[in-house]
């Protein structure tokens, strides 16, 4: 289903007045837009989670919408905020295992996501980028990455943490 900016804007104005029917239509329209947005940036289950988290944010922060401005840029900013927040949480958790990719819908989305990640990795220090590639993309354990890169295990964790944090900052500044 494809809805236009004008449709979403009109639905949002009615939603602010408490029209539940318009709100359902609005959220349904947003769901498809958000799915495309996050599929280009995250993998399967993470993208689905972010779609729902963004809808909850849209709901709780709907009073921050400026009725005189277009709707989709506002939604995009909220979606990006949730995405950056998810990247930060990943950096904090310092997870080591790869996430399940089974929910990916199309090869195009996977390629887009990987291209985006590669571009961000190029902006990092080589020591950070190499261990993020090994652990996050190739699936090596921290120990294996440490042996392969010549860094200590602690340094690998620090470089992953700092690298992902830097990637989040780069995304935020774009």
């Amino acid at each position, binding site marked *: 289903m494809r809805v236009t900016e004008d449709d979403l804007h009109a639905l949002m104005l009615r*939603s602010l007045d408490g029209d*539940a029917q318009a709100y*359902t239509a609005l959220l349904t329209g947003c*769901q498809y837009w958000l799915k495309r947005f996050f599929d280009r940036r995250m993998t399967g289950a993470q993208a689905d989670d972010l779609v729902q988290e963004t809808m909850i944010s849209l709901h709780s922060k709907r009073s*921050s919408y*400026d*009725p005189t401005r277009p709707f989709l840029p506002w939604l995009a900013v909220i979606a990006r905020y949730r995405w950056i927040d998810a990247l930060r949480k990943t950096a904090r958790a310092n997870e080591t295992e790869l996430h399940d990719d089974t929910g990916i819908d199309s090869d195009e989305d996977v390629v887009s996501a990987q291209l985006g990640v590669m571009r961000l990795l190029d902006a990092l220090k080589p020591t950070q980028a190499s261990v993020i590639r090994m652990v996050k993309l190739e699936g090596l354990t921290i120990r294996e990455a440490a042996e392969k890169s010549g860094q200590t295990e602690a340094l690998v964790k620090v470089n992953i943490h700092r690298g992902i944090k830097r990637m989040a900052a780069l995304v935020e500044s774009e």
Partner: protein
Amino acid sequence: MNMNTQNLIEQLSADLRPVTPIRPFSGVALVLITALLVALCTLVIFGGRADLMAGTPNPIVVIRGSLLVLLGLATSIAAARAARPTHGAGQNGWMWALAAALVMPLVAAMLFCYHLLTATPFKHGDMDFGYYAHCFGISVTGALLIGAGLTLWLRRGAPVNSVRAGWLVGLASGSFGTFAYSLNCPSNSIYYIGLIYSLAVGVCAVTGRLIVPRIIRW
């Protein structure tokens, strides 16, 4: 459509209530009203400068007050605008106000260097910092009240750059808090203003940067 998401949409729709969009104007108005109350309290509790009360303020009082109000107003507007997520709208006008406010400490630093290089003695009172704790305390206490109000107001919105918003809240509250104190401050020294006023605003800005993002994150 994902069934979980469909359930979520139904729940959110059932929970829908009419809301009034927040307006940055209300945030700025809140800051101005709080700042006015803080200034009035300062005048009532500590009294105003004699020249100010007589309606013939020393020019430096007018200049420093104007710079602080300008900075406070510009940063309050930027902070209030931050409550609404926007894309691509530049909101860096407050930086010009900050640059203008930095003139006082810069002039103080240049004059200080001049004194050092030429071995010119300081005028009496130039380096009298005996009441700096009093000045600093009043400025920061006033700023805390103003900053708390603006932070709580910002929580209603959706600031996407919480770090920037924290700086702005700190600068806005520090500027107005220091302005409130400046109505009582007996000093006319550029050194005093350049150092103590800048320190008060700077400490408030750093405090805002450290505390506010944790409160307004959503």
